[in-house]
């Protein structure tokens, strides 16, 4: 099986696995004061430092709070922002991940004002619309670094500047870009990240808080993580996340060169296809392609040797056409002809070449019989 669905999740790095395994047996509660507890707490401190450093906060000036994943972090960011004061408006982008859009929609039902900014055909946010929408009623601007379906990189610094000029907070969903694309951390008040997108374990993510940000707790209980997010931490998951982050930082250049090389091969082999989203402002390990007349859903079931998707894993089971592809102006039909190929550190040149052949041949068969 050739795995080309790196945006859905990534294979666990062997180093991460090795870092996690001892913590199946070292069962101490990291919040206990005895030796077993202190040992676990130390592992969590090391993990925190590793993740913060990969994020660009090696000095640990901000606060990194572990969560169950990025979905929880995004929920916390959006809900927390409305609890901060009198402002009741959230400005986000129409192509955000469901964890942001659905939370925003739910907050809208509670009476908040929600604006989902449109994007151009290139998938990049409409900055005129952003300028108009971000005002003194805005509590939070939420924008993703790298889109999970089409890989485009949003102008984070510009959006953050608009937010700050209006006195609003800026939240960045950096899940797909973390460890891969430069994140302007200084421009952000809140950042959500996830371990399993960087070859770490599922079940852990984090919300990073800018230095000095006064922030309400989300989950109440034992007062763990400085009272911000209660619940016993898993030293195993934290150690895995920390190791994954450390490797991502060390291997950054190597991974980038590798991904660029694979992307060049794929772009070369899919010449008859159209790339969805901007060609330049993108993370190249995410290639979203369409070809008229192709049925992406059928293609995925026909090419059994390759694991790839038609969009986000969350949405691709639903049968609904992707909201991202609709937002960039594709018709429902065009959206249904689109596939997403995601690849990274452990993908080989032979794999992408073989996968491209299989997919392209299956697509050609579909077109022939159509």
């Amino acid at each position: 099986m050739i795995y080309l669905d790196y945006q859905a999740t990534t294979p666990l790095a062997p180093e991460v696995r090795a870092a996690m395994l001892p913590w199946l047996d070292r069962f101490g509660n990291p919040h206990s004061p005895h030796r077993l507890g202190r040992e676990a707490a130390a592992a969590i401190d090391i993990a925190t430092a590793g993740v913060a450093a990969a994020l660009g906060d090696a000095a640990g000036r901000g606060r990194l709070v572990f969560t169950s994943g990025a979905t929880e972090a995004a929920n916390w960011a959006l809900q927390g922002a409305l609890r901060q004061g009198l402002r009741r408006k959230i400005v986000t982008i129409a192509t955000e991940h469901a964890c942001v859009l659905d939370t925003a929609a739910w907050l809208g039902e509670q009476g908040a004002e929600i604006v989902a900014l449109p994007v151009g055909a290139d998938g990049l946010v409409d900055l005129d619309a952003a300028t108009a929408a971000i005002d003194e009623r805005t509590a939070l601007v939420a924008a993703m670094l790298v889109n999970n379906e089409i890989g485009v990189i949003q102008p984070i610094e510009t959006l953050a500047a608009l937010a700050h000029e209006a006195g609003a907070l800026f939240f960045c969903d950096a899940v797909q870009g973390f460890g891969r694309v430069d994140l302007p951390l200084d421009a952000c008040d809140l950042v959500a990240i996830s371990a399993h997108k960087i070859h770490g374990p599922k079940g852990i993510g984090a919300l990073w808080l800018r230095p000095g940000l006064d922030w309400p707790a989300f989950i109440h209980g034992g007062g763990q993580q400085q009272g911000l997010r209660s619940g016993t931490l898993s030293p195993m998951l934290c150690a895995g996340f920390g190791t994954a982050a450390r490797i991502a930082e060390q291997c950054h250049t190597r991974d980038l060169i590798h991904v660029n090389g694979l992307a060049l091969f794929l772009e070369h082999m899919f010449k008859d296809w159209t790339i969805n989203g901007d060609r330049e402002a993108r993370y190249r390990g995410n290639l979203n392609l369409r070809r008229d007349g192709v049925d992406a859903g059928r293609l995925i079931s026909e090419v059994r040797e390759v694991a790839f998707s038609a969009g986000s894993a969350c949405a691709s089971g639903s049968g609904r056409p992707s909201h991202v592809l609709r937002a960039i102006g594709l018709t429902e039909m065009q959206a249904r002809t689109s596939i997403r190929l995601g690849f990274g550190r452990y993908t080989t040149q032979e794999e992408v070449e073989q996968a491209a052949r299989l997919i392209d041949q299956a697509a050609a068969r579909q077109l022939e019989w159509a």
Partner: protein
Amino acid sequence: MPDRVYLDHAATTPMLPQARAAMAAAFDRWANPSSPHAEGRAARAALEDARTRIKTALGWDHELIFASGASEAAALALARATLPHRAVSAVEHDCLHRARADAEIIAVDANGAANLDAIPEQALVAIQTVNSETGVIQPAEATAAAIRERGGLWLADAAQSAGKLPLPDADMIIVSAHKLGGPPGIGALLIRDLSALAPTGGQEKGYRGGTENLPAAIGFATALEARGSRAHLPVLRQLLDETICAAGGEIVAEQSPRLPEIASYRLPGVAAAAQLIELDLGGVAVSAGSACSSGTLKPSRVLEAMGWPETAAREVIRVSLAPQTTQAEIELFLQLWTTLAGRRRAA
């Protein structure tokens, strides 16, 4: 990942296993192809078979004179051509410059393209197909037309392009086996009309004396037939070009059409010798310019001809690929190279 990554295929490239096997078998045909006895006749038949196979693989219908390599083929053409004059482009391989010191020099522009307006009348004109340092491809049709207009003959050094690009429409073509997976010690002069050369007597219809090197000829033919696919090389070259430019490097003759197999890159501020040492320690073999000159301290004559100042020319390395080159090999090189580039910025 292999222990060593070899990215100096323009200097010489490993013999293909098929060529080795064919040569090993050919050593059993030890007879002299010019002997009249049965053993000799068998060797002759094998030699002619190798000649036909090489011509077929290259797509050449005319004469082929075996020589000990490209250098000898070049010397033979420049020494024996019946035309009164000689001209050699400024970026030709040293073997052409050395063969006729009295040849007129045809200048090149900053992109490495020969000045076709400067071609003299009635001359044997040596203009290569592909430059061995920069990979720049000379425009074949325009070159052929310009030389013929002036009553001359085109001597095309195709040592770097044979087996990769189609042969040009030239009057004489130089090829070499060890640049394409065959053995060192054999090359050939392809010639449209033998009457353009004065014969010397001896073997090869009187145009090249010396016992024919049958095993090498068979290795040459087999290598040409066994060459692997080049389809992935443009992508690997693009990865090299993009990554190096993004990290502050410079592509030599970026504006020119270039063979994917060969390119040179400059890392401003870091001497090529220092780059070579770092890369070698890291497990990657590349070169500074051509192998012939990189052992010396002279800066590249090719870059000088293109108008490069000496200091900049001394910061250029050549990275050359072959069909067997993989993405993993290119990635290792690029990691080392970008580390070097990063250290320079930090310094």
